[in-house]
């Protein structure tokens, strides 16, 4: 396979630059980015791919994870940070 094909990218609307698929798979630590399916669905059958490759528990965890709004995230992170003090 030609390198230019392997290096296909998509523009990440969160980061504001181009990224490879491998980043999307671990954006959320041990889970793919919550937006991975919506960003890559037009490119290939990512849903089937993830269903096959993730353990059933992880798949459920992935599809149920929340991509919080900013204020929600801020409040949540403030509370966590305070607990670490």
């Amino acid at each position, binding site marked *: 396979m030609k390198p230019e094909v392997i290096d296909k990218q998509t523009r990440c609307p*969160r*980061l504001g*630059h181009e990224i490879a*698929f491998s980043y999307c798979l671990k954006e959320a630590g041990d889970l793919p980015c919550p937006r991975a399916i919506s960003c890559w669905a037009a490119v290939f059958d990512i849903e089937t791919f993830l269903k096959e490759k*993730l353990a059933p528990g992880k798949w459920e965890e992935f599809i149920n994870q929340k*991509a919080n709004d900013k204020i929600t995230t801020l409040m949540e992170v403030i509370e966590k940070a305070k607990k670490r003090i």
Partner: protein
Amino acid sequence: MEQVKVFLDDSEIPRQWYNIVADMPTPMSPPLHPGTGQPISPEDMSAIFPMNIIEQEASSQRWIDIPEEVLQKYFLWRPSPLYRARNFEKLLNCPVKIYYKNEGVSPAGSHKPNAAIPMAYYNKVAGTKRITTETGAGQWGSALSMACQMFGLSCRVYMVKISYEQKPYRRLMMNTWGAECIPSPSNLTQAGRNVLAEHPDSPGSLGIAISEAIEDAVTTPNTKYALGSVLNHVLLYQSIIGLEAQKQLKKIGVYPDVVMGCCGGGSNFAGIAMPFVCDKINGKKVTVVGAEPSSCPTMTKGPFAYDFGDLAKTTPLLPMYTLGHDYIPAPIHAGGLRYHGMAPIVSHLVREKTIEARAYDQLKTFDAGVKWARAEGFIPAPETNHVIAAVVDEAMRAKEEGKEKVILFNWSGHGLVDLTAYDSYLSGKLGAYELPDEEIKRALNAIKDFPKP
């Protein structure tokens, strides 16, 4: 001679920001604390924001004075010029007049300093010595770095590690303006250390970077946090764009039929749009459109609802547009894939049908951006390409309808630090393709440690 630019003298700059909250057709639902079900209090936010900014976040006062110290910094590039895109008009050959506010003339190259400067100023007044934030590609981080330097504040930016490595130029801009730019996850915070302990090679994420920036602010004396989008006070500060545009258009006796901006978190769109939304609420006939990426349609597809941040109900409830079931591929029906990134004010106005949203895929936006650059010279930021695609779309509609239209849009920033994105587009790296076996193998390697059936 055909006039291209409309300027305002420094003395003509608007002296007040406009707060759309005062004129909402229906009142906005406040964000609720999930624990109590009550609206979030100023105290809830005081760990990270100074009280003068919190007051503006909660304000329903229509006009808020712009401090002289802020105006003096704005004068470095404001009032920004209003352009007429005559070359692009000729290229499109449609019955439209296209005007745009060039926000790329700011020192940081985008609209972001409009908010960064007052944030730094109000923090300075409140006694803050140091500000933290997070950034992806660095547009916000660089703007805040510059603003902090202007008011003698220290600034630390947690930049997502993959962005830190791939986007060196804005990192260098931050350093040049005297800020610390730290690749996230880092060893400087417990949040970062926790991630590194589990994933030593973590490329980072915005979520991790936010955690680090907030932990830093919460645990360090005289330190606060700043956010460059979404929140009400950010949209307030950006209103300077639309207020200037109104004055400039009045000078030449023009009023737009359509006002457009690109929508990420909503700040640059709101900046150009809200003063015209005020006109619309008061009876003026104007269409207001936000353009967003089709890969994450936050406004165009999502239902509007209160939503818990997590299933344990430990995070605030906030009414936002969410990415709904109708967008997600049919077999998936989970709330977890929804996206909540849009400003509540913008979400509210979409629900009220005061403004409308349109989505454009990345290939269409880059196609529009390249056409723009070849006609008008200025290379747009990739985000700005979304609104240019919307302008093209609107021009074509005008042609089909046989109507003459005046379009005003916000050219939110230049793309001179984003040329790798253009390289990806021009060399065919973006767009639909069959995922090759090698990439699948590489992807599988990324999740090789995940539990298997």
